[in-house]
């Protein structure tokens, strides 16, 4: 059974992906793989396993992006963490998962996805957090996404503390439908969901507060709602993925 209806899901039912391109794979082939295989496959192979929303972004190739900042980011919502884990009982999900090795740097867990915990004022490297403990539907509404690198003259601890303080401020002051963040030693990834009825004022954003504490490379994205025009077995060249592409994939959910 499928549905297009808005249905909020828990804020911790999300995998937060930070992917690094295999150094042996030229960046144009990386884009090609993402557009012709990975991004559409993520949707088409996992809808029936309970995928609820999927928002990939491709910082790879953007001018000035440090190598320590992920080449591709994504948040993948499920209707629960249990649904995500149950996915591996299905051949489609196992197959999809095993496609990553030829594209991403997976040694030493460098490219990884993790489930978030509720943000309580402090951050741990590679542990995603969510800021608002309420359900939301990330396929609908407006998502803003920030990807940033740590400036060379800022030490990792100071970077971590400054980001945590900004996130605390956002958590207290900015009325968002949802927000997710993750830092590594050298990067920050942050997503927020805003929702506004037509004709009402634009809701606030927390991104300026984060940008205020960043002195290194950073880039904001607004993932574009994007439909796939085809199914798994249709003839299709794939999506046009390039530096800075950011999509909020639109699909009919399987309930």
């Amino acid at each position, binding site marked *: 059974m499928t549905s297009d209806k808005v249905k909020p899901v828990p804020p911790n039912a999300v995998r937060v992906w930070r992917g690094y391109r295999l150094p042996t794979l030229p960046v144009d082939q990386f884009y090609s793989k993402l557009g012709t*295989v990975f991004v*559409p496959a993520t949707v*088409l192979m996992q809808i*029936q396993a309970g995928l609820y929303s999927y928002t990939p972004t491709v910082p790879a190739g953007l001018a000035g992006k440090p190598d320590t900042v992920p080449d591709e980011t994504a948040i993948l919502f499920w209707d629960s963490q249990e649904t995500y884990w149950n996915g591996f*009982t299905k*051949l489609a999900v196992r197959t999809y998962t*095993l*496609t990553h090795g030829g594209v991403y740097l997976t040694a030493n867990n460098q490219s990884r996805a993790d489930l978030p915990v509720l943000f309580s004022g402090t951050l741990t490297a590679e542990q995603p957090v969510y800021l608002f403990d309420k359900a939301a539907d990330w396929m609908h509404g407006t998502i803003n996404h920030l990807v940033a690198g740590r400036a060379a003259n800022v030490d990792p601890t100071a970077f971590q503390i400054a980001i945590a303080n900004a996130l605390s401020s956002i958590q207290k002051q900015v009325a968002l439908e949802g927000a997710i963040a993750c830092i590594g030693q050298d990067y920050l990834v942050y997503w927020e969901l805003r929702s506004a009825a037509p004709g009402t004022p634009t809701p606030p954003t927390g991104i300026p507060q984060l940008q205020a504490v960043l002195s290194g490379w950073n880039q904001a994205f607004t993932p574009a709602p994007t439909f796939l025009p085809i199914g798994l*077995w249709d*003839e299709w060249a794939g999506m046009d993925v390039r530096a800075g592409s950011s999509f909020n994939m639109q699909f009919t959910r399987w309930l």
Partner: protein
Amino acid sequence: MKAKPDRYAVEPNSVYVWRGFKAAATSYGDFASFLGGVFVPGCALLQPEVGLRAYLPTMVPQANKPAAVPDQTALMFWATPQSHDLATQAIAVRIYQNLHGDAYDMVRSKLPEVPTALPGSGPIQAEQPYFLLNQKADWMKGSVHHLVGARRADLAQADFLNAAYQWASGFAKQPPDGIDAALLCCGNDYAVAWVHGPAANRDLSAALAGLAALTAPVLNAAPQPKKLPAGLWDSWPGLDLTKDTCINIQLKRPSPSVVAPQPPKATTPVQAFEVPHLALWKSCVAEVLAYELGLNHTTAGGIDLDHPLMRATDRYCRSVERNTPLPKPAADSTDEEAVQTYLSYLHHRRAHAKIAQNPEIEAYVARQIQEYKFGNPLWQQMFVQYFKYYWQYPYHKGGEPKYRSWQAADAGKGDLNYGVIKWRLPANARIAIVGDIGTGTDVAAGVLWAALEFNPDAILHVGDVYFSGTPFETRHRLVELVRSVAGKQGIPFFTVPGNHEYFTGAVSFLRALDSGDLVTEPSQQQSSSYFCLQTEDNGWQFLGLDTGYNGHYMNVPPAAQQAVLQRLHLGAVETPSGGDSHWPTKFNPYLSRPGDANLPVKDPTSAPPQVTLRPDEVTWHQDKLAKFTGRSILLSHHQLYSALQQCGIGQKQLPQADGSSQPDPSDFNRVWVNTGLWRQLGNAFGDKVAAWIWGHEHNLGIYQDNYRPADWPTNTPDALQIFKTLPKGRCAGHSAIPVQDVEAPYAQKYPVPLKSAELKLGLTGGWYNRGFELIELTGAGNPARISYFQLAGADPTPLPIFVEQIE
């Protein structure tokens, strides 16, 4: 009853012969787990939809297996030798090919996989697979035997390969009984072979005994049929290949036409010109070419879209339609394309000079024609044909197009039952809907064939026979098409005319109806260009509307018509006397001159502001709507509204005190809505009319249900009584005319949203798929179901797009 051919049998070289070696770092347990848990079932579930026809994987026993013998073998049969490569056009196959389990030693496993015929002399080449019998076979059915053996220790490598050749050669010359296919591949140190027989449950091991004798067999077994217990999204751990070691996976194979991807055919656009003079010229070019090429007996009538003269005519007509310059090539030009294009213009112009009885221009044009070395005598025939046709049709004599009014003395004689089809549809009828199908292309026939797979009780067409509905075109592209496809199955075909039939006054269209060739029994005879077709239980009726009568100049403003004629008759270029009018106005039926007594009774260049039905026909349809107790579905060529094309008139503007103007909020007119048609029939929308299906745009438009402009008045008498809401408006003009992606048929120029953004035709090789609809009735008082289908390119398999109810 005819025996069905084995539709899944494939050519002997349509197979990939896999010999895989496990990666050294991978344990056999992990290897088997990866293959069983993901790789093998993934192959079996992801690829049949796009051409995998049989899959026989085998795990080679490890006990006593020399390292040089593969750890795993597999045969993967594809629908055609090209299918494997073409299948990568599907994401599912790209996913499978991107599986990265690190389980194989890809250096050792990267070996030739596609077999060739056995060479005339030995030895066989190591690592090159061979097929031994050159015939088709379906390897998923019947019996198979598989041998994997290590080279016998007492045979040197060269002797081994020579001996294997001798065995294979003998096998090919005298195949063992019951064997219809065989594959062999030898490495320097191993041999793998498979034999197949069409009969099930046969032991075929003896057929490989000779080869086995050259080896120390590691595996000598019959692959066991194995049906996968689960699908892609079911919870299951996969296959246990330590138990199911040698299997023939029983794939879920869809229709063979689906699973046989073909290289995309080059498609040539059908250029349809809305200007009648250009459409008629193109008709004449196509007709003469059809006879010249001997295609006049084919169903399509031989539209050769790629013929140089046809391409030249398209270029010429485009330049006229767009009013762009058509450069005159030098007499000795070697640019044949440019010369032929110009010759198309000159011959068309010469025909009009003759029509105008102006020998001076005709001679002048004829002299120009003689200048070019690339002349073609066919142009002369086209010129003659044009002249002949031009005067045969009512417009050109200043008359009306043909129409059979229920009120007219020579037609209905005032009988409101005139035009009602006597034959009734069954209460649970299936009705196929096609639009703009009269093209003569193989796609048109393919769409009809596909629709017939659903055994419809009738086919309804929403009009257009290209390019201008001449007798030749109507005979081939409508009558013969229908007779050859639907007629043989006894399915009646009912149609309304589009604008193109009226380019020649609908004369041939009515003759086609009268011929009885579109129906299978007299009671089905359609007597007029509009019709009423009802079900036996009075649950549903289909009303065919003739919008072509007033709609044949819909997209061509009068000024554009004048421009075409001026270019043909009055233009400054190439006229011997430097631009004076050479058109004797007394012969000109188009150029209105006050006081000219010979002006036509109807000026066809004055297009009505929007297409409407004739008033007498409105009365007729209103009568049917009022008297019928069931639900009605309307069918017409022209749109009630459009997201892309202008089909209405602009909203009235109210002047403001400051000199500006504002839209009149009480005015229903919008440029994308035909308020004329809405005003004629809208009183029955909802209560009586459940849906309206139209064509004209060569696209499928599944528009938002209950569409009406958002800012239309809601509580005025007109809003409540005339501009009522139509539950479903659907555009279905996508049955034949090719449309490229660059034409952007789904560009939403006007605010008419689709029901859902993804409900669009798919693309195949840059061209939008063509298709049809199927309406299924389930009796009076019950909702009908409409299914939308498309065909991917030339593949006639109907692919469902969407299903919805009509209530």
